């Protein structure tokens, strides 16, 4: 019941956030130079045609009024239609969301598994592994996913032909091809993140090993394996879970680049295209979806805290 109340409280508290983010996005997009009516009307349009397009799109209204109209529709579940294709925004986003989620969830999972494994290994072995993990961290942080993606495609798609260079296959169409289409994008996304997680895991594990209760357990003859997996890992996991939450959110941003390189029909690519076109309803809808994803990710992190630490549950 306490968990349910916590979830409800967090969800309710996200409503003002959604409101604020949507308003801020609306203002920011309107500040960007350019005019979608001018783009739609084209370079040969007469003044009358251009004016007619502005009227039709409601761009002649004041900014607060435009936002109010969007908000009223959004509250009723209608995010409007793309100014260019005419496709309903909810339909556009629903088509794109699974692609981005596939990337982000896979990326987070691979980063988590790889990072925790490397971190544990490094904490246990020390020496060279510490340096290797530090080196990998520096490399992972220094290499932009965009560049890494291009290199991976050149090697593993163009030269070796192991994986496709572009595109996305739905798991409903072909699960094996879906997995194959995700390999290079996920590796591009995960390298930096897994390095950060590895470093965090190693530091947390070493820190926990230095705690008094671990020393007492060691003095009482508990096996190292038992101490590591039953006590150290659980205690060290909280900061790692925090980092995983951050990774999830940062991968949301990184998908813009990775989806562009791999031509994957996700939210990132949609936002890029919509921003270039000044397609305000699509930008608004996409930002709303992404804000919701961030809220959900943070909620999951909080729930994980509760599972890992009874004191959080009690609080």
């Amino acid at each position: 019941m306490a968990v349910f109340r916590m979830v409800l409280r967090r969800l309710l508290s996200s409503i003002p956030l959604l409101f604020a983010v949507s308003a801020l996005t609306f203002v920011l997009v309107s500040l960007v130079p350019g005019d979608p009516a001018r783009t739609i009307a084209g370079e040969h349009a007469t003044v009358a045609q251009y004016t007619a397009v502005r009227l039709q799109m409601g761009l002649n209204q004041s900014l607060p009024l435009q936002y109010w109209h969007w908000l009223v529709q959004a509250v009723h579940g209608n995010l409007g239609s793309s100014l260019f294709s005419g496709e309903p925004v909810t339909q556009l986003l629903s088509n794109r969301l699974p692609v981005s989620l596939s990337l982000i969830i896979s990326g987070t999972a691979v980063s988590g598994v790889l990072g925790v494994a490397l971190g544990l290994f490094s904490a246990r072995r020390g020496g060279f592994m510490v340096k290797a993990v530090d080196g990998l961290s520096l490399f992972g942080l220094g290499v932009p996913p965009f560049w890494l993606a291009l290199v991976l495609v050149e090697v593993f798609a163009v030269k070796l032909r192991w994986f496709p260079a572009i595109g996305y296959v739905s798991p409903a169409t072909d699960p094996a091809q879906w997995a194959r289409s995700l390999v290079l994008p996920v590796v591009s996304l995960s390298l930096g993140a897994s390095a950060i997680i590895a470093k965090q895991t190693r530091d947390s594990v070493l820190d926990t090993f230095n705690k008094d209760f671990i020393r007492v357990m060691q003095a009482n003859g508990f096996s190292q394996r038992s101490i590591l997996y039953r006590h150290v890992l659980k205690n060290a996991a909280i900061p790692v879970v925090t980092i995983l939450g951050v990774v999830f959110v940062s991968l949301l941003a990184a998908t813009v680049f990775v989806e562009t390189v791999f031509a994957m029909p996700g939210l990132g690519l949609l936002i890029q295209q919509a921003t270039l076109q000044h397609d305000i309803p699509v930008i608004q809808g996409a930002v709303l979806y992404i804000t919701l994803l961030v809220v959900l990710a943070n909620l999951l992190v909080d729930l994980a805290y509760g599972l890992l630490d009874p004191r959080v549950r009690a609080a």
Partner: protein
Amino acid sequence: MSKKCKRQVSGTVLLRGLAVAASVALTATGCSGSSTGDSGAAGGTLTVVSASPPASLDPTKANVGSDNWFVNLTYDTLLRLGPNGQLEPDLATTWGYVGTGNKVFDLTIRPGVTFSDGSPVTAQAVAASLNYARRNGLNVSWTSAVSSVTATGPDTVQIQCATPNPDLPGLLDQVSLVGSVISPAGLADPSKMGTASYGAGPYVLDAAKTVAGDHYTYSPNPDYWDKSRIHWKQVVIKIVSNPDSALQAVQTGEADALSIGPSQAATAVSDGLTVKYAPVAFVGVNLVDRDGAVSKPLASLKVRQALNYAVDRTAIAKALFQQYGAPTDEISIPGQLGYAPDDDNQYPYDPAKAKQLLAEAGYPNGFSMNVETQQGGGIDLLTQAVLQDWKQIGVTTNVTTDTTIGQWLSNAVSRKFPALGFGYGAAPAYLLSLDWMLPHATAFNPFATSDPALTSLLAQAAAAPAAQQPALDQDAMRYVVGQAWFVSVARLDGIYAYSGNKLTGFDVSQGNLLPDIAWTIAPK
């Protein structure tokens, strides 16, 4: 099948992307005739890459050039520009001007053709479609001379113009899109045309296999009038905005063809792809404030000429476009009405003469002005190079670089910038005049500069018989270059790379710069 050549005409290609507005025109001979219906042997899947999604699938709202592939597959046009640049019959079997003056134009519509929704392609439907396009199309200025389109019989249509329009046949082919015939069902609810097809083309949009903005899938139209034109069981247009990724997709065989930039051509060739190219656009800096409203010096012809003499076109073209760009002073390309070979080098690079002209105009120490340009297509880089050359003669600038076409258009028509970096597709002189030379405000003539002598030359050319038109158009082009309305710098090639082992009929030539994905590209 009857065959009757009516007159020399000009076809137009306008290729417009985010950065480069490009077009091509050519002279060809309009003939009548028909193709025989045959059961087409459809190959597998043709996948081509586009750098951006279409502005719309509605032929009247689609960008000519960058969106043609998306539209041409599903909408047949009245006339067809063949690979050799000749206009051929499509939904119209005969066509031509009536009388003199280029004001009345007749078409005969092919009998027995249906739209993909099953309704018949009648003269009435064609007239309604053309009337819709001329009133609502993106390129409304091209048809601004047209006063009416009427069905004069069950299979005949007449276009009447208030003022001479010598380029009507060119407007009705698959490149210009104006002649894409839309079914009555589409016209009844135009909002649906953005997401579905309402044409009489060889393919129909497969909405279930399409994800807008990512890929567009087309399947054969079972009722198409000439099944021998259907070469594929499926055509997919995949959107890949990153140029490197797009080329990699063709290298790996995931796609079959794409448009590439000059820097990618060598890679494409070394990877075994076939590369074809032909001049498609011109780029430079447009000196739009010719009356000196915001930059007084530009009102002086000597100043504008000085800005032309100051630019080392050969060096800039070579540095930016390698062998895929050629220096030019004019806004036309070979093979088009208006192109004058002797006009290509009216302003040879001569900084000393430029300084002398500036001094004679009363600006011995130069002057300063604002310039707007646009990102992409090499336009921003070219503008920067031109501005560096101007700096050598004392002309300094403040540059605003726009990142989207909408932003550029807004700034261009704002009349705040006396000079605009541009990219524009080549077009016959008549269409160029509508955007560049006639005294009404457009993005390429925002101050609506009026020059009665030029207007008179253009009017004379527009009404002239076909035989006299090329010389008159050249006179107009020579005049406007002489008046230094712009600093045109280079003409660019449109470059395509494709899998030569798989495809045939992938033609790019001076006559037709846009490979015809709907009719001629076939499996090898």
